[in-house]
């Protein structure tokens, strides 16, 4: 019955028989699968990011790295000796340190100014004889506790505290937000509430131009203009050549267009009816703007702010050029202190061997950075969903 219903009677219509059943289209299926694969690459990207960051961070926290202490044993050491002399100079060794001579691992029980007493054959290695002149290596390991609580970052000598980098990142981002938030919101209010159509048409493209300028140009601007300006205003003694403040201020200029643009979108989305109602009640323009429109657009504004903070935290080039090249634990914004992103760039800008402590450490820092920005982004999306007013 189906066949007869779905085919035209040649006699009746005079045209050739046409089969109108649904045809299986293989080509369509293939194309659809291909498009699905395209969409799924985005998942691979995220998976890739998380996997690589996590893997190297795991290495970072579990590896036992050996630093060369530049100390050597003075005379041949037999397989049984528990005490032997070491050369002067080199790194400082303390009781409880794990050391390595050739392939054997030992633990220091006690020490005098030129001799060590050790427990031999630790960590599953066999006690063996060693020739004079063999170098001692000291073990160091990064622990999570040290990572988050110690205030010194220097993997070469066993200091693994990430706090100086994090504090510096937070300080520069805070300064950036102090600049960008008030200015951005005010500009957005002006553009959406006060500006004429023509003014808006000319101003918005200008702001978009600001948004497109590469960050390295902002870095150049920070070093050649902002730092000398700050130094001439506040004095060369107060403000160092590399400092967090000028990087922060310029970062604020960088994210200003983003804040303005997103805030303006949020404010424009508020229906005009609300404004008209307020005017009808006798409110002035500013009263309407500040007490009616802004609260109504709150979710969009909050989202804009949080996304901008996340952008400021992830910003690299400005701080790499202008904020300093050495981790420093300080709260003074006029001093130099390296941020998380600046550190990653400096370390990888040279050359890193794939299994060194430095290579692992940049991934650990990267993982922390990823979590910080991801959390901020998720929070902003939650806020939008929860507080969005539906009109």
């Amino acid at each position, binding site marked *: 019955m189906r066949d007869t219903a779905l085919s035209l009677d040649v006699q009746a219509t005079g045209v050739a028989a046409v089969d109108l059943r649904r045809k299986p289209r293989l080509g369509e299926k293939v194309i659809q699968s291909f498009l699905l694969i395209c969409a799924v690459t985005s998942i691979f990207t995220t998976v890739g990011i998380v996997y690589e960051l996590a893997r190297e961070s795991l290495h970072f926290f579990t590896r036992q790295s050996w630093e060369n202490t530049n100390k050597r044993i003075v005379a041949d050491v037999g397989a049984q000796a528990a005490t032997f002399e070491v050369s002067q100079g080199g*790194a400082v060794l303390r009781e409880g340190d794990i050391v390595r001579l050739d392939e054997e691992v030992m633990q220091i029980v006690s020490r005098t100014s030129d001799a060590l007493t050790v427990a031999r054959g630790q960590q599953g290695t066999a006690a063996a004889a060693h020739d004079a002149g063999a170098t001692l290596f000291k073990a160091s390991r990064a622990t999570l506790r040290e990572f988050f609580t110690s205030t010194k970052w220097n993997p070469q000598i066993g200091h693994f505290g990430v706090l100086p980098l994090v504090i510096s990142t937070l300080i520069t981002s805070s300064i950036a937000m102090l600049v960008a938030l008030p200015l951005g919101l005010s500009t957005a209010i002006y553009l959406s509430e006060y500006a004429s159509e023509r003014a808006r048409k000319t101003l918005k493209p200008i702001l978009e131009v600001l948004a497109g300028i590469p960050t390295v140009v902002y870095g150049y601007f920070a070093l050649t203009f902002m730092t000398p300006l700050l130094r001439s205003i506040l004095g060369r003694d107060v403000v160092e050549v590399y400092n967090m403040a000028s990087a922060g201020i310029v970062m604020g200029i960088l994210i200003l267009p983003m804040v303005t643009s997103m805030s303006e979108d949020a404010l424009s989305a508020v229906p005009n009816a609300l404004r008209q109602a307020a005017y009808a009640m006798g409110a002035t323009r500013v009263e309407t703007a500040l007490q009616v429109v802004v609260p109504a657009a709150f979710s969009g504004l909050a989202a804009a702010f949080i996304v901008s903070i996340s952008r400021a935290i992830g910003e690299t080039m400005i701080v790499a050029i202008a904020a300093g090249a050495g981790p*420093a634990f300080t709260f003074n914004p006029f001093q130099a202190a390296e941020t998380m992103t600046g550190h990653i760039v400096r370390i990888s800008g040279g*050359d890193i061997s794939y299994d060194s402590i430095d290579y692992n450490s940049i991934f650990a820092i990267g993982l922390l950075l990823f979590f910080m920005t991801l959390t901020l982004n998720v929070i902003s999306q939650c806020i939008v969903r929860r507080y969005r007013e539906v009109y």
Partner: protein
Amino acid sequence: MNKLTRDVLLVGLTLVALLVTACGGSAPTTAPTEAPTEAPAEAPAEAPTEEAPVEPSGKGVSLPAVNPLELEGDIIAAGSSTVYPLAEAMAERFKNEGFAGNITVDSIGSGAGFERFCVAAESDISNASRPIKESEVKSCQENGREPIEFRVGTDALAVVVNPENDFVANVTMEQLALIFSDQAETWTDVNPEWPDEPIQRFIPGTDSGTFDYFVEEVFDENEEPILSAANTQLSEDDNVLVQGVSGSPYAIGFFGYAYYAENEDKLKVLSIEGVEPSAENVDNGSYPLARPLFIYSTAEIMQQKPQVAGFINFFLTYVNEEIRAVGYFPASEEALDASRQTWLDAMGQ
């Protein structure tokens, strides 16, 4: 290997044969201005080959003339940021005089340079401002590379302060150790007559040969005090250090002399133990922080890549003409002769 490499090798080997049999020591004979593939058996026409290698003391060692126009291929060098300006200058001159291939020089620090040379086996020449370490020689050998050392010059490590600094012009080694360690926070901690301001320190990063050298000479190989000091900025890029010291009145830093020479108007150099870093003090050995500059390669690379051998030859021949302009000091004639002899030995002469 691809066709290009094969052609280059063929041409190169022929050229090397030519050069070796050519008259050694004197001015480069009429180098062929047409296409280099003309090559082969012109060789025997020139003077006896014995003239090329070691001549008795006094005359020094001379290398066979090298013509950059006839060399092709690529040369990869990487390593010390101190040696970098010198290597860059020689590479540019090599290119200006006609070398058609690609020379890349990366400034990543002596340690990282050896890493790339020995472990990754990616570079042909490793620049270093310190001698190669035992452990690095071992890792090279594990990868089938036997490093050979060429001394190319001398650096007087410049300890610099800001030009506005009027209270210190000379430091002793003990004071240096104190200034750069975590024992001193302000200038007063080092010398009570100096101002009570925090010391801003700008030092090369830990991958830098300059760093290793300083730690060896001043801290007896213990890197903890200098790395634990407060207010310290580290960078493998000496330019960043120059900017830092020139920007702050209470700053102090150290790097290769060339970086001071190029920025003399922004920096003030200190004398160490009463000795100034000058050409004579470096020559007579009285400046305590004078250190040798090296480039490393292997005989195998030099023989397989004649352009590398040619470049090293060029380097050793003309380095003294360029080194002062760069800002460093020439190595002694004996040292250069030894390097040239090493070159000849490596090429099998």
